[in-house]
């Protein structure tokens, strides 16, 4: 095992008034792709929100880069190097593609590098460059997801949280996105990937955790999980 960049220890958290996470513990290794799998409503998004400070855990603690995130707010998580690409992308649809990206580099620590970051994002997603002056709301679904990831990369994150990036996208776009996620990881970004596309995710993940109705149920390397009958039954159906 390498160094854990993020450790979640015995966390309880609520989604509104309903408890969504029960005593959840897991860790994310530095420079690895860690996947978080589970059905709809398993608490995956709530767990990401707890890490990025959108939701406050009611119990337990989250340790990031060796120090606990205490009373963490989203702005604080962002400035400590955690970029969260939320479910549904949450782009500023009335702003242009370029403005969305510029705001990704809003933090004073990364703002001076805006030009270089832009070049890097346009290198990864050339289509965004051609759409630069367009309003974000006019992009296709795949382009919007690229913009959401690009905007998060503008903050030069150490840890990138991706919440269902493949949702609602055509298979060819999903393949492209997963290739980019792999490439980002090779470039040194630690990735925590929440997905429902289990097969594709296990192809690129180094390690995976399975959340079921708010409780951490299974974990292992993709090969281990794929060899586990219970896992296969739950996620891949009989044929898989």
């Amino acid at each position, binding site marked *: 095992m390498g160094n854990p960049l993020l450790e979640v220890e015995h966390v309880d958290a609520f989604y509104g008034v309903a408890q969504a996470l029960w005593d959840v513990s897991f860790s994310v290794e530095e420079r690895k792709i860690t996947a978080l799998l589970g059905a709809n409503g398993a608490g995956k998004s709530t767990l990401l929100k707890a890490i990025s400070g*959108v939701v406050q855990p009611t119990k337990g603690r989250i340790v990031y880069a060796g120090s606990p995130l205490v009373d963490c707010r989203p702005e604080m998580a962002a400035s400590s190097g955690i970029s969260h690409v939320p479910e549904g992308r949450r*782009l500023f649809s009335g702003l242009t593609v370029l403005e969305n990206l510029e705001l990704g580099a809003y933090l004073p620590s990364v703002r001076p590098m805006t030009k270089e970051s832009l070049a890097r994002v346009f290198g990864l997603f050339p289509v965004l460059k051609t759409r630069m002056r367009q309003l974000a709301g006019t992009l296709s679904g795949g382009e919007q997801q690229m913009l959401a990831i690009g905007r998060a990369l503008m*903050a030069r994150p150490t840890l990138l949280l991706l919440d269902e990036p493949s949702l609602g996208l055509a298979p060819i776009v999903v393949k492209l996105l997963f290739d980019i996620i792999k490439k980002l990881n090779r470039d040194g970004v630690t990735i925590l990937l929440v997905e429902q596309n289990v097969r594709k995710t296990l192809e690129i993940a180094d390690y995976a955790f399975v959340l079921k109705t708010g409780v951490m149920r299974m974990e292992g390397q993709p090969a281990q999980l794929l060899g586990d009958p219970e896992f296969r039954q739950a996620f891949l159906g009989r044929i898989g």
Partner: protein
Amino acid sequence: MHWFASFTTFLQIFVNGIFLGCMYGVAAIGLSLIFGCMQIIFLAQGAVMILAAYCVFWMVTFTPLSPFWAFIFIIPVFLGFGFALYTGLFQRVAKTGKNPSLLLAFGLMVLLEHVMAFVFSADYRTVTTKYASTALGLAGVSFSVNRVIVALVACAATALVFLFLKKTILGKAVRAVSEDMGAAALLGMRPEWVSAVTFSIGISLAGVAGVATCIIFPFDPYFGFIFSLKALIAVAFGGLGSVGGVLLGGVILGVLESMTSYTISGGWADAVAYAAFLLVLIFRPEGLLGRRLGEKA
């Protein structure tokens, strides 16, 4: 009801309407900015305008300065006033939802009106400038110098806000927070700070509109409420989200009122304005100039 005596008369009424509308427009831009960040109609906008009008009145009474100087000092003073109002009052209340914020705005309006009535008395006040009776003539239409200056200041204020929102990173953050506060926070923006900035700009625009108002109209402590309503109509005409659109919305309202006053009577001007407001809300709720939801840019 009678029609225009001549084309020149028509032009004159039209120009008067534009000048009136510029003042509505500036107040309305402030209103729409505050609506963007707090999702409430800031009812106290008019009362804040009148507070600025009193500042000018006392400045002119106690100093030899021309009222036009007030445009320069009112902007920083009301930026500070807005910032204090937001951090002192609204920031705490905003967390509990928008209804308390709306009530607070209403309470602030009543408080300001009554404090001004108590301290400054309920008498009508007027501010005169040395250009009060000077007018420029062009093609048979006369332009009151006061109104020309006021309209120019209104356009300059609009242009500044437009540039701020489009060109600066903080301005872009204001637009982002207005669209999605949660997503903005994930990128490291502090919504409270951005909201405080937005609110302050809204209040300073109310200040500018107040200076403009007192140069042109006599006022009393309760004169502002009607301006809050007029600004609201201008926002509805222009559509939220576009600074130029809101100014144009104000101008449309001003022209409509001025035309109605001339062709029917002054008493009908408000009635026609409110009727137009209702029609716009029913048939084009996104504003005459606003983009329909989902429409491509």
